[in-house]
């Protein structure tokens, strides 16, 4: 799995990296150590926000949902039993929140649409490789948006976030076989949608 890493520029709480997520949860439960929550946020917010954005494809909505997910997770820490890794539990909350949001969006398609790719006039102002990259990025956004949420979740968790399919299955609440199948289907559809951009 790709680490959130220190490159996000967040201020650490002074708690060392050797302290596990589970120990931080215990510190919060036993002593109400707010620094433990801040450290958990520092460690995981980047990944959570990135994951949410890849699903929802809208920066403002991803920001709101990421904040919502962190607060929701912190308020439910008593429910975290330690049967899974903290990250699996947190990402599951994140993906459930995203699926709910996408479901609401499906029912009210006018609101909160995914961002459209850059305007053609803006693209035309660029040159060569940059224009190609912009076009590719726009095509990726549209192709991801066209995937049903479950297929999108599989490709986001396994291909983009590089999670193990077994972990992705736990997060999505399905079997590993289902994740393989969704992944296969998502890759097939993306390859078709991006056939002009991704030449063999």
């Amino acid at each position, binding site marked *: 799995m790709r680490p959130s890493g220190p*490159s*996000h*520029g*967040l201020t650490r709480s002074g708690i060392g990296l050797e302290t596990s997520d589970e120990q931080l949860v215990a510190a*919060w*439960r*036993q002593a*109400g150590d*707010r620094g433990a*929550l*801040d450290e958990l*946020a*520092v460690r995981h*917010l*980047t990944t959570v*926000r*990135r994951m949410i*954005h*890849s699903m929802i494809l809208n*920066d403002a909505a*991803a*920001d709101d949902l*990421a*904040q919502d997910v*962190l*607060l929701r997770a*912190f*308020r439910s*820490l*008593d429910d975290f039993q330690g049967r899974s890794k903290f990250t699996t539990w947190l990402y599951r909350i994140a993906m459930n929140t995203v699926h709910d949001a996408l479901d609401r969006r499906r029912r009210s398609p006018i609101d909160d649409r995914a961002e459209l790719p850059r305007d053609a006039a803006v693209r035309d102002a660029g040159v060569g490789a940059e224009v190609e*990259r912009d076009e*590719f*990025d726009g095509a*990726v*956004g549209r192709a991801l948006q066209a995937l049903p949420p*479950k297929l999108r979740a599989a*490709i986001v968790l396994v*291909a*983009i976030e*590089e999670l193990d399919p077994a972990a992705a299955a736990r997060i999505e609440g*399905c*079997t590993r*076989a*289902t994740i*393989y*199948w969704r*992944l*296969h*289907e998502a*890759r*097939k559809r*993306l*390859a078709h949608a*991006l056939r002009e*951009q*991704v030449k*063999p």
Partner: protein
Amino acid sequence: MTPDPRQPSRSGPDIDVRLREWRRRRDVAADAAGRVRRIAAAVRAADVAAIRPAIAPPVRWVERTGWFAAGLAAAAMVACVAWRNGASDETANWPPSVRFAAADIAARAEVLAGMEQTFAGRLAWVAEHDQTVTVGLADGSAAATSVAVRIVVLTRRGPAARWEPAWQTDVVVRDEQVVDVAAGAHGDGRLKLWAHCLPDGAIAVDGELTLAMHAVPLRASYGGVQKAGLPRRVTGDGAADVEWQVIQTVVPLRPATGKEVG
């Protein structure tokens, strides 16, 4: 053709790399790091009282919760027995067509054996519904073990009404192959199905079914381990005055002879 889903797709790794490149550029373009800093600040400023941890329980309460847990477990056992009884009653309300008769299974096994010769061992699945038979081929040689799956969608209008079959399909699928076939009387739905025989004789099945029936669009995604030969309600829902449920029966077919009846 239906490739093995456990093998990475040929376009997979390249697509994955391009997606990660897209992700990195997207983060830079949208100043993701700055956005994360602002979210972190908002989370830090959130009302601490609203996320205060539950106070650790005193020992006596823990002891009491132990008794409470024991009582809860006993109640759960009683409820489980009641549920099992209820479940068998529910099964009795299903029409007989949800079950695989031995003759049905033998017929499917024969069809499979015949087609097997035609497609030189590459047959991945055969699906039969609404007077239509569809076959899927594997990239290479498919596994010898097969599973016969019957899926019956039952609907009823109101709790007092009888459950009636609304749509049905019989599928024979090689172990770990993926069925992907049109579903519904007008072919406007979709069925995806994957089955795997477990060493203990049970069968793991994952399915995704969409059907446009009546006023209730059926959209079901389910998965689980199922005993051979026993019809099982895998999912169900309802809206307005129409309810539906999906009943699935699975039977393993022995390789080679194609005459096995489970």
